[in-house]
């Protein structure tokens, strides 16, 4: 394979309109996913502002209690199914093909269909605000019997729409997962064996395998829930011989793995970025790769830790307490690998690096509260309190969303072709880090004191911590402004990005910024080394120097 006709010229069709139609290019779909996800992020965030606005005072004075139930239900549902999953699928679409040197996904049309389902079920879910009786109000778990009540008796009701939307989201995610897994398994560049694959692809493979195993169970459970709600069956109704706890099993059999679907790619992002900004190879690369699959295996057998108070057998409590604690081992391996990578590195505190460091800090904190929750006696005490809410917001906002921001700042130049502004980025980081900690730290003392979650009024003794949390939430709300400003202005008129602004190693950095539609096309470079050869001077691919020279020449002449 020669590099004579390499690098491919930059893309010709850069018109805006391709983002609004049925396009099958993974890079277009990736951006469609991310922009759509942030649209819903704003809606979910607005709901969060209402929640924290209500909770800044002990009395229920901002919204009606039933409305409040609908708001936190929709907040959780939107953030998970319409923000986190779509934004991660966006990153998968951008990164997987370029990182492994594939021209596109294995099934481009399926990929586009999977994306277009997102606005469809998004509209269904948002539309449920406007049906008689309002949206679903049974929390993002939708446990029966609350979720099988239909007091107004309309066939089309908020809960029914909720279940339909979640099922459609499942269909879309399964389509996506099929695509990502097939692409990673079948379309890697020559020479890229599994142990030369970037960690992000490992974690994506792990996360998407979890989707394939877990989602069908949720879908099955949701079908039965919908039948109970709308067609009079009694799968979960004790009067008819059913069992409400069965639904909890279905729900958590998926929704516990779902948290690893979220955090695994973020582990991937950390593993990609720490080496770049520390100028050192990733410490313990092979162990980090393998740990992802150990997490998959263990992650499938811990779900009952969400049901310790639900009347499950004692042996189950013991078993699931033990298995949950075991997960800390592979997770700890990764944390040590990142610390080992940063240790004595030449740190460059750019915006993406700051987000990674902040995310890692928050993740460690959340891991500690997670282990506390895994301990049955502690969990019985704090389950269904703000302690749990604090725990998972530290992971999801503090670690996952921060990691996603890191990824966006890091890869923005590659896929948009322009540099984001560092100053705005750092302001964004500062507000996010301070806001998240101020928002979610107070939830832990609140939970330990016994404040239940999902209430709109509370005893005045909880007021102090609640005020702090609300202030943190408003700061988080504000933190989005520098982010959006940065994205829009740098997209429109930011400085042009060179092919490798961060001096990173990886196939995606051997493409022009933005990459042409079919990436490397026919001229995929042959990989000859493990990733992350920072400071070793080893090339990643054959003819690396020539490729880079030509890219630089191309940029100079443009």
């Amino acid at each position, binding site marked *: 394979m020669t590099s004579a006709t390499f690098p491919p010229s930059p893309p010709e069709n850069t018109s805006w309109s391709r983002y609004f139609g049925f396009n099958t*290019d993974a890079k277009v779909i990736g951006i469609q996913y991310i922009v759509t996800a942030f649209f819903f992020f704003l809606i979910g965030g607005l709901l969060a502002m209402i929640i924290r606005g209500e909770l800044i005072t002990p009395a229920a004075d901002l919204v009606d209690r039933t409305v409040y139930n609908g708001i936190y239900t929709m907040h959780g549902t939107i953030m998970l199914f319409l923000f986190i999953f779509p934004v991660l699928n966006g990153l998968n679409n951008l990164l997987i093909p370029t990182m492994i040197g594939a021209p*596109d996904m294995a099934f481009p049309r399926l990929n586009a269909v999977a994306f277009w389902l997102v606005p469809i079920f998004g509209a269904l879910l948002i539309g449920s605000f406007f049906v008689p009786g309002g949206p679903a109000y049974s929390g993002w778990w939708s446990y029966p019997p609350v979720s099988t009540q239909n007091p107004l008796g309309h066939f089309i009701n908020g809960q029914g729409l909720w279940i339909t939307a979640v099922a459609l989201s499942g269909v879309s995610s399964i389509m996506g997962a099929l695509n990502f897994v*097939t692409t990673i398994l079948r379309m890697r560049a020559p020479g890229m064996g599994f142990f030369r694959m970037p960690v992000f692809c490992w974690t994506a493979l792990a996360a998407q395998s979890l989707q394939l*195993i877990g989602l*069908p*169970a949720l879908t*099955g459970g949701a079908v039965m829930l919908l039948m109970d709600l709308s067609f009079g069956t009694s799968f979960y109704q004790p009067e008819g*011989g*059913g069992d409400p706890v069965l639904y909890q099993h279905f729900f958590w059999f998926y929704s516990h793995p779902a948290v690893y679907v979220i955090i695994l790619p973020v582990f991937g992002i950390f593993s990609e970025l720490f080496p770049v900004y520390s100028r050192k190879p990733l410490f313990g690369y092979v162990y980090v790769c393998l740990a992802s699959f150990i997490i998959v295996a263990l992650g499938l057998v811990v779900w009952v830790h969400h049901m310790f108070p639900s009347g499950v057998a004692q042996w189950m409590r013991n078993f699931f307490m033990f298995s949950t604690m075991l997960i800390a081992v592979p997770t700890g391996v990764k944390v040590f690998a990142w610390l080992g990578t940063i240790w004595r590195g030449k740190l460059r505190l750019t915006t993406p690096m700051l987000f990674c460091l902040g995310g890692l800090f928050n993740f460690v904190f959340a891991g500690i509260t997670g282990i506390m929750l895994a301990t049955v006696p502690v969990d019985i005490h704090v389950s269904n309190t703000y302690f749990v809410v604090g725990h998972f917001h530290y992971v999801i906002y503090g670690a996952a969303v921060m990691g996603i921001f890191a990824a966006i700042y890091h890869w923005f130049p590659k896929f948009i072709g322009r540099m984001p502004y560092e100053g705005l980025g750092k302001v964004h980081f500062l507000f996010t880090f301070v806001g998240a900690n101020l928002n979610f730290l107070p939830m832990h003392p609140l939970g330990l004191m016994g404040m239940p979650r999902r209430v709109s009024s509370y005893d005045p003794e909880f007021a102090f911590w609640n005020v702090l949390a609300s202030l943190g939430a408003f700061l988080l709300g504000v933190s989005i402004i520098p982010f959006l400003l940065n994205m829009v202005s740098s997209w429109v008129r930011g400085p042009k990005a060179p092919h490798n602004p961060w001096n990173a190693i990886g196939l995606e950095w051997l493409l022009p910024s933005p990459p042409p539609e079919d990436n490397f096309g026919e001229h995929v470079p042959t990989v000859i080394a493990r990733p992350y050869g920072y400071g070793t001077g080893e090339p990643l691919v054959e003819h690396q120097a020539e490729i880079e020279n030509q890219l630089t020449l191309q940029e100079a002449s443009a």
Partner: protein
Amino acid sequence: MTATPHLNTEHPKHNLTGFIIFLCSESVIFLAFFSGFALLKTAALNWLPPGVEGLEWRTPLLNTVVLISSSGTIWLAERCMSKGNLMGFRAFWLLTMALGAYFLYGQALEWSGLQFGLTSGVFGGTFYLLTGFHGLHVATGVFLMGLMLVKSFIPQNYAGGEQGVQATSLFWHFVDVIWIILFVLIYVWQRS
């Protein structure tokens, strides 16, 4: 529509990989239904609704025999195909479709003779859910076979890889295995 014309053509060689992964994932739904069924049944005080004696097993047993033999005929069809015998392929393929259609007919016959409905407690609910969801798969299989049969009349279509045929036949075996488990769970395991 701004679909891009030439570059992103589908990659047919990955279709089978994708389909196998899909089947693995699909089997989890059945696994969920089966384990839910087992859990509800073992926990039930009165499994059978009042007035129901149990399930008649003769029609379903005949159906089982039909479905299992259709797995054999589809295998024969595939063998003909790999030997380049297109007529033999069509014959066995059509036979498989007929057996599948007969299965659906038998299922409908059984359903229409039952004295309980979807809402007759968990017994009725799980029965119709499991058999209905499986029946949907049988119908899908027959439909896919019809599609492949039509395709076989397009000249040169099956000259290269026959991934569509392979995938359909895989799906059919899958539907068959699911039925055997289902038959054991629902009809053989009658006492609780």
